[in-house]
């Protein structure tokens, strides 16, 4: 399987290098531990993030995007594969070996309330990483906390307040301040704006853009909203059922989405422009996301794909740069001439039920 292509030219090793990462969870099991069911939450994901680069990881619920984020942040142990931070393999490190590396990677979560300790003041929350890693003490620590609060746009008076006294947007700013106060090399943002109102979301996205430019950290930005991920990212990887199905620069993904799932995602996101929205051909996917307990054979998207053929049922497509360097896609129907026109197939009504088509092909 090809790694996600690197677009920027790099000096030195990438900040994050994930190779063939799999995370499987056991889901209960039968009597006497025989034949345990395994959820393949992440199944063979490879990606790289260069210095100062923002990689967006987009997918719907159950795609495994958050699990990738947690594995990268060292919050869960992968089943197989490797994760390197700044050239150093972290998946087999012990807790104590991992500890100094935790300075280099930080994560923020969707719900800014449940991830802040309600008994700690804002100042203490932001000071905590500095204390944990023994980076600064006394006045120097206070100074760094104040400077970080200012960077995320919080008034210094809020230092002595508690999380419940803050609005959702302010809490997410505190989360950012805590994650960035150690100046990590990699910042994992897991749906950081999904719980916020649009006007607050806009402010946090602008802030994140500014901070990234100012501090130069690399970022893995995880989201379900294509327009949000597109706004913030340099490159984007699309996940479906534990696998990356397409990855390229943000502009290319927007201009030439190739994988039928990516095309469906774009088509399903309604544009805030009524005449434009009315004129679009919508690709409405049939059925639900299959269970990751029992993923489909072949291409995992074939059960919902409007253009799937017989081969998609049996052969798993590899993530390859079919149409040119810098654009990887895992689909049998993408060739050097480009992607299948899923919208046209839907509009022409040739995308009948999957059963019909598979019979035709057979």
């Amino acid at each position: 399987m090809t790694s996600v292509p690197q677009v920027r030219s790099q000096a030195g090793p990438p900040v994050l290098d994930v190779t063939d990462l799999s995370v499987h969870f056991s889901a209960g099991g039968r009597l006497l531990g025989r034949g345990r069911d395994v959820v393949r939450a992440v199944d063979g994901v490879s990606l790289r993030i260069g210095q100062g680069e923002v990689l967006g990881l987009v997918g719907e619920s159950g795609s495994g995007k958050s699990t990738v984020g947690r594995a990268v942040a060292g919050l869960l142990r992968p089943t197989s594969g490797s994760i390197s931070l700044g050239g150093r393999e972290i998946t087999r490190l012990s807790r104590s070996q991992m500890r100094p590396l935790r300075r280099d990677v930080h994560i923020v979560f969707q719900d800014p309330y449940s991830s802040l300790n309600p008994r700690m003041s804002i100042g203490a929350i932001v000071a905590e990483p500095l204390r944990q890693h023994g980076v600064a003490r006394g006045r120097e620590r206070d100074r760094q906390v104040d400077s970080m609060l200012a960077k995320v746009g919080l008034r210094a008076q809020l230092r002595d307040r508690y999380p419940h006294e803050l609005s959702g947007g302010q809490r997410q700013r505190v989360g950012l301040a805590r994650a960035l106060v150690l100046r990590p090399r990699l910042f994992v943002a897991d749906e950081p704006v999904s719980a916020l109102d649009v006007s607050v979301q806009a402010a946090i996205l602008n802030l994140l853009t500014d901070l990234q430019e100012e501090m130069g950290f690399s970022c893995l930005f995880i989201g379900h909203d294509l327009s949000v991920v597109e706004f913030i990212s340099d490159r984007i990887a699309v996940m479906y059922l534990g696998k990356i199905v397409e990855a390229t620069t943000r502009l290319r993904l927007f201009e030439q989405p190739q994988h039928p799932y990516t095309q469906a995602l774009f088509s399903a996101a309604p544009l805030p422009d009524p005449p434009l929205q009315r004129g679009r051909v919508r690709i409405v996917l049939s059925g639900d996301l299959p269970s990751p307990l029992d993923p489909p054979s072949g291409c995992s998207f074939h059960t919902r794909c409007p253009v799937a053929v017989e081969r998609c049922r049996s052969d798993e497509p590899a993530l390859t740069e079919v149409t040119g360097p810098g654009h990887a896609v895992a689909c049998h129907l993408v060739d050097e001439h480009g992607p299948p026109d899923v919208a046209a197939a839907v509009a022409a009504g040739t995308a009948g039920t999957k059963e019909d088509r598979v019979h035709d092909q057979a």
Partner: protein
Amino acid sequence: MSALLEVDGLGVTFTTEDGPVHAVNDVSLTIQRAQILAVVGESGCGKSVTAMSIPGLLPENAQVSGSIRLEGVELTRLGAGELRRLRGKQVSVVFQEPMTSLNPAFSVGYQIVEVLRQHERLGRRTAARRAVELLELVGIPAPSRRLREYPHQLSGGMRQRVMIAIAVACSPKLLIADEPTTALDVTIQAGILDVMRTLRAELGTAIMLITHDLGVVADIADRVVVMYAGRRVEQAGVDELFAQPQHPYTLGLLGAVPRLSVTSGARGRLTEIPGMVPSLHEDPDECSFAPRCPRAAADCRAHRPALRAVRDEHLAACFHPGPVRP
């Protein structure tokens, strides 16, 4: 023919330990048959309270003033029993979280059949047949098999389809959908929006859609009401509103949404709306949006601007309206 729903001068005040909260002030709106009206705004703007006052689903500490008429019948004066009958037959509600609205102990089929037997007085067999038709209407494959399943066996999208099937079981004239797709993935959302289009086309159902998502509004609404701090700030047809937004708050909302159509290589900037939503404890005589508004002037702080026609069929509550982005 008069409008299906006429809300006139609606006010809702909640009595709380910290004093009264004026959640909704002077909201008037109409919905025609088979029309989709979107009510848009951010958390706390009063959109859900406005909607829930129609079927009488507000908590006991709410005081409702003004008038709500459905086909000329005043709803604010109905008793509990009459409201219950109204909710079954004429007005139904679909909520954001379908799991908490379905009873986990009963099969999907039982829950639909129960509604039909209660409200439509159908026999067991007729009701079962109708239940299959309803699941087909909302696009659930293999409906007879699904009827025997329990809510936990269904995905989020399927549960929301079941909720809509139950809501339209008695062919209500008005369906109130409160953030019906917010908890769902975008590809599933597309299917649910299609179901709502089908209801309008095939059953002539009018829909009041409560949402914060301007993309959903653009996709499905005919008319739009924008709310801020418990009041209407702008109201227009959907094309007009997006093409010629007049109120600075509407402009702020439109500018805050990242757009997929950005074609330049450089990252854009999103419009921020500085400050925070005002407290609803007081109700001063000034524009509620003035503290956050780039156009605010002395007049905005001296009086509350009334909602007035700024263009044809286009109302805005602003002393300085206009489509220039702040």
